[in-house]
């Protein structure tokens, strides 16, 4: 298990390799990326900041909780901070488990908890040159975001399952 905040681009393949083990039959790789549109406004970049020490502590707590709930220690999470361009990965979660059900569930648990608890903020940079803190509390991003009421923008994410 490993969780960390990084500045450099995240190497998703390296995270996937890190959780690989012959006893695991399923690996779920979650990659959250910077999207070009928010609330109808064109976005051309994002700056992430964090309360780094607390963010790393919360991420470690979340990984431990997922390990206990879903029965795997093969969980690696990296969240990037700094200025990111469109399409770049802001967060990558690699989970491996003997079975796919638990791997998916653990991956989902980690991202949903991360979005609720980890003290990270994003300053969106719009095409018109203005910048604005994304406010999870405003509710403006929660509309139509999917079946789970607690997540904020799951539609900017991609999930790949590898065997």
């Amino acid at each position: 298990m490993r969780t960390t905040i990084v500045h450099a681009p995240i190497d998703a393949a390296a995270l996937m390799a890190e959780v690989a083990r012959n006893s695991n039959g399923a690996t779920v790789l979650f990659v959250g990326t910077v999207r070009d549109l928010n609330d109808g406004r064109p976005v051309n970049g994002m700056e992430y900041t964090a309360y780094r020490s607390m963010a790393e502590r919360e991420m470690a707590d979340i990984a431990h909780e997922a390990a206990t709930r879903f029965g795997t220690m093969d969980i690696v999470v990296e969240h990037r901070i700094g200025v990111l361009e469109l399409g770049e990965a802001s967060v990558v979660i690699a989970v491996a488990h003997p079975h796919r059900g638990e791997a998916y569930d653990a991956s989902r648990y980690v991202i949903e908890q991360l979005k609720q608890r980890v003290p990270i903020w994003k300053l969106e940079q719009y095409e018109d040159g203005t910048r604005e803190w994304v406010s999870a509390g405003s509710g403006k991003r929660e509309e139509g975001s999917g079946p789970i009421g607690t997540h904020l923008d799951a539609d900017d994410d991609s999930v790949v399952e590898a065997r």
Partner: protein
Amino acid sequence: MTVTVLLFASYADSLGARSMRFDMPQGATVADVLGRVRALPGADRLPSEPLMAVNERYARGTRVLEAGDEVAIIPPVAGG
């Protein structure tokens, strides 16, 4: 006793500072520290009950502080 207050993101912008120190009486709580911050210019933009943390853990307003504690006022998180 001295406690440090950390501000982030929109809250840091509103108050024009990322950290500050307050001399608090013994027995002071998280809510007491928040009250001191509220007296500062720009603090009117803080919500009525912001998320708070003490020494990197979320904490309630009733939490009693000790000398050297690091209190953070946490804007709505937006990671991922």
